[in-house]
């Protein structure tokens, strides 16, 4: 299954590099939202819970753009049919899409967070990075696992653009709570991240649960 997933992932990344349909849109959206917050809040710097909220809600909504487009090529260009005709475990498709989304989020964060730092962040990201990194990675895994599952659920529906956020956002509330709780002390001057391990553990547990759920049900989603 891993070899098949790698083949699908390579194909997806090649298509994304040529079309530039997902990642540039996600980055542009995030930067635009940061600029809007900069002027909307009329503040030059944020910290603590407000900075945390702006970061995580922006990343989550930018992620939605990528999630909505995850299976477009499979639906419009016959990829689902191709894969259902091949002697493969269809869970490889979910794994590849989740991996692609994970990578999109990493690229988004590498590009958008420095912009956030420059435009809005008071304390600066440099000192927080060692602790912020595992939070971002674990949150990305959760978002990728659930996003790849929900996107597959919604792809054949006419109201896909509505259904994805309506299904996905409630499922991601635990991720946002844990990521925000873990991040908030890192972006507040003079606070120590005492509960970091607890929230990282929560995120890891969420990731494990949703990876297992996705692996268990994905094959049935593509059945007639």
């Amino acid at each position, binding site marked *: 299954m891993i070899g098949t997933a790698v*083949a699908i992932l390579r194909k997806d990344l*090649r298509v994304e590099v*040529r079309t530039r349909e997902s990642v540039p849109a996600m980055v542009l959206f995030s930067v635009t939202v940061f600029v809007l917050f900069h002027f909307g809040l009329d503040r030059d710097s944020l910290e603590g819970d407000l900075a945390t909220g702006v970061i995580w809600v922006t990343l989550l909504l930018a992620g939605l753009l990528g999630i909505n487009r995850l299976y477009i*090529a499979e639906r419009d*260009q016959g990829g689902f*049919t*191709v894969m*259902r*005709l091949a002697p493969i475990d269809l869970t490889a498709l979910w794994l590849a899409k989740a991996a692609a989304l994970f990578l999109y989020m990493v690229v988004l964060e590498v590009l958008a967070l420095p912009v956030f730092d420059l435009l809005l962040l008071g304390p600066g990201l440099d000192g927080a990075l060692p602790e912020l990194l595992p939070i971002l990675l674990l949150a990305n895994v959760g978002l990728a696992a659930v996003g790849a599952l929900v996107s597959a659920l919604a792809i054949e529906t006419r109201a896909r653009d509505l259904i994805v956020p309506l299904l996905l956002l409630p499922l991601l509330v635990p991720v946002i709570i844990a990521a925000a709780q873990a991040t908030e002390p890192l972006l507040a001057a003079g606070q120590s991240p005492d509960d970091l391990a607890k929230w990282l553990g929560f995120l890891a547990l969420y990731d494990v649960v949703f990876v297992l759920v996705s692996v268990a049900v994905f094959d049935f989603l593509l059945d*007639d």
Partner: protein
Amino acid sequence: MITLDGVVRRYGERVALDGVSVRVEEGQTLVVFGPNGAGKTTLLNVLAGLLRPHAGTAAVLGAELPRESWKLRGKVGLLAHEPLLYRELTPRENLRFQARLHGVDEARVAVVLDAVGMGARADDPVSELSRGMVQRVAAARAVLHDPPLLLLDEPWAGLDPAAVELLEPVVGRGSGKTRVVVTHDVAGGLREADTTLGLKAGVAAPVGDEAAIRDLYR
């Protein structure tokens, strides 16, 4: 090889196949005629294991459908209305991807691309190819894994006479494979056929001769 007995397939309330029965032996060609919306593409999708029959019995390549449809994976070559190719990728990239899915040696990619006369354009994006060229690449994709059963929906659509001749040993009678061919080309279809099936509004209709086939379209 293929045995359908009273197969029914519905889309919601609409009946797309209504008690269709047919039998195809190994190496034979079944040609399916019928007007638009008669259920021909649905029949191909049922035979490919992509759609479940809702009633009746269906056995394809020894697999009882829908219970054993997984057994068909990798054994069917489908040349559908859509080419089932990624437009942003080149023919070679598309077929390499297919080869990995089917566990086929990548050396075969060049062989089948040459067989359909697309070796020279193998590295151009599919989006830049003409319709006939895309159809040729789609044919190469359908036979890449050397399936014993070919399901062909209007296989000659968009092809010039030279391309039809070129594809004859690939997806034509010269391939020696068991085939189910859907076509509106009555004369061409009859030349290909060992067995014929007429479909009208999902119901099998007798098509003993050319006149009966043409009646289907009235």
